């Protein structure tokens, strides 16, 4: 197995003991094909058990492991060591409060998802016994690409508008609203429009394109933003 020595510079913050954040340097031997998350896991198991971060699936689908890697928002389980040289700098996602180390508080994001009423508000109700709502493949394709957001919040870290205007509802929540608006089974567009079209809704988006850019280049092969 090809190995290499990887240097990580990780932002540390512990509210129990620190008043501000600091960087800590780790050196770990890693396999060539590893991702940044593997390196962090090795640090935690063998060097420093007090390092904290979130992860679960290791396959870019649960959305837990977003971090800033060399200044860009990435999923650490899908960021390959082979694409980096020298010291790799790892920080928590920007634009979110840092609870500890690489763990941020996504409360605002969760609140925004809920605000756009992301559920079917049926055009016409019918009981289960009458079977499925018919939906042609073409009708499905109309919204499917917008239904693939893994809620990783990278786009919120990438979006300067969200950083400057925190009440901006943001890329993922807008996409989600659009996903339901485009669904042939849904009749809730009007209700959602109240949220989306108000001043903190879609008009705040200035088309920086950082959301799709950040996700497309590197991180979420499964997300709408990767198109």
């Amino acid at each position, binding site marked *: 197995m090809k190995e290499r020595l990887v240097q990580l510079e990780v932002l540390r913050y512990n509210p129990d003991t620190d008043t501000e954040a600091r960087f800590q340097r780790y050196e770990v031997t890693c396999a060539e094909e590893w991702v940044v998350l593997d390196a962090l896991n090795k640090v935690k198991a063998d060097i420093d058990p007090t390092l904290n971060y979130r992860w679960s699936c290791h396959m870019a689908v649960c959305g837990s492991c977003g971090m800033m890697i060399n200044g860009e928002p990435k999923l650490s389980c899908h960021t390959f060591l082979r694409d980096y040289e020298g010291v790799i700098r790892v920080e928590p996602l920007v634009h979110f409060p840092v609870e500890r180390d690489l763990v941020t508080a996504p409360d605002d994001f969760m609140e925004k998802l809920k605000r756009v009423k992301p559920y079917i508000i049926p055009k016409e109700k019918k009981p289960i016994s009458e079977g499925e709502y018919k*939906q042609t*493949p073409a009708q499905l394709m109309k919204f499917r690409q917008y239904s693939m957001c893994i809620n990783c919040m990278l786009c919120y870290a990438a979006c300067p508008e969200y950083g400057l205007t925190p009440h901006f509802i943001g890329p993922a929540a807008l996409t989600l609203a659009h996903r339901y608006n485009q669904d042939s089974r849904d009749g809730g567009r009007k209700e959602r429009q109240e949220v989306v079209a108000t001043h903190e809704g879609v008009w705040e988006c200035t088309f920086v394109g950082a959301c799709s850019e950040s996700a497309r280049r590197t991180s979420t092969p499964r997300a709408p933003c990767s198109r």
Partner: protein
Amino acid sequence: METISTDVAIIGAGGAGLRAAIALAETDPKLRIALISKVYPMRSHTCSAEGGAAGVIKPDDSFDLHFDDTAGGGDWLSDQDCVEYFIHEAPKELLQLEHWGCPWNREADGSVAVRPFGGMKKKRTWFAADKSGFHILHTLFQTSLQFPSITRYDEFFGLDLLIDEGRCQGVTAMEMRSGELRQFHAKAVIIAGGGGGRMFPFSTNGAIKTGDGMAMAYRAGAPLKDMEFVQYHPTGLPNTGSLLTEACRGEGGILVNKNGRRYLQDYGMGPETPVGKPQLKTMELGPRDRVSQAYWHELQKGNTVSTQWGECVLLDMRHLGEKYIDERLPLVRELCASYLQVDIVKDPVPIRPVVHYMMGGISTNTKAATPIPGLFAAGECACVSLNGANRLGSNSLVELLVFGRRAALSAIEHIQGLPAANTKALNARAVETQKRIDGLYARTNGTESMSGVRKEMMDTMEKNAGIYRTEEGLQEGVKIIHDLRQRYDKVILTDKSKVFNTDLFQMLELGSMLDCAEAVTVGALARKESRGAHQRLDYAERDDNKFLRHTMAYFKGLEPPRIDYLDVVITKSPPGVRDYSGDHK
């Protein structure tokens, strides 16, 4: 310690937990529901399921056929009353998801599309591209947002059940971001904590699948059922354990050994079918246990390929061609290219079997009730005895829905006319949890490292309780795990901080995994037969006389569990021969 009073507390917000919460909220909007989860709901591991969910919907299919596939696939260890209930509820639940917006794939006429799946005789697996579990989870989560009676406690780590007067009346949990304990007083508790595949070193399971829910119920006195049945998926990446979906084979990929032979034909799954023309229930579309076991035999014969990641067999998809692969298996190509640096269009992929699913779990009946009044369980953490000795792919996503809902309805029945809780007694129980946690922080005589104990546990499970098992191997395994459980009390907690202390959570998870691992090894040692996913080299045959029974493991503190047995419910399909030689004579 802050007390939160609620009507029903649910531990786990994956597919099963969310379905239960919605069912509660819909059935009785006045109920207060606390949905407790150690991760945000959409991070739950249901999101990683790719293949799909089985339910009879097409005219050429029938309930009887789904019944036969499930009962036979489970090597007749499934309770058939449970299978019967399940197959009838399955299409209703999948339609319900359709009404809630799940983006199921469609036929040209707008009806729901189904695909073939291993071990299923008919096409009956509903799917949403290759992200079925993801879409199910997100549809449920988003749907749940419309119910004000569901209060979510995201990133609360469930610790102990509160049992008083023989009834389950709540649970303690730690708010992860503050490290503070909370006690939830509830009239009923539903556990939906998912599986525990992480006790093995190679697993498709995410980091959160550590069997906490199972261990919580087990410690409180509920038996764990059939824990020795652990499913291997035949095609995992040899380095990360990531799953290559069964669709690889469904679309025509073949498995070959180092001599290029399609070795499955040598293990009762032949005769060979033409390359690229897969047939249901034979060769590459045989059931998971058989296909995984064939790998082990090839390994013994020296027919595997040595790679930098260990011994592998090859999954060859080259004959499908670039165009077809990009159309049907784009994510598989991406996964292999990025994590293994293999292009499936040009080269075969090295793969090996990987731990995937636990058939066993908290013993429940068809009403999703455990033997402890007030305690219900659903999803992978429960063993309602649908999957028997071997789960069929695409049955478990539906199980989450069917029994998630069932658990909710049973909980509602249970709480009618319940006497008031003795809060003093519950408080006293909660204080015990507090003491346990304080003890971990205060431990100064620690000598064991957490990662060390964890690694030993994983290696032991792999070596002694893996695809094939023997008396000596299991005896050794039982002993080592027992030992590790004693040593667990000397593990050092390095991080003494309160806020989001993942060192602490990993320590608690290790405790859960060790408890479950002991139930697995002890159950496996006691089951002297081979059935489904439990294969013994020294008892190669199924023994219906002695073991057409469920293993029940009862917690005995630091001692190994007490093992008891429960008869399997057989209604209409007597044990027969599992035949995967295809339709052709």
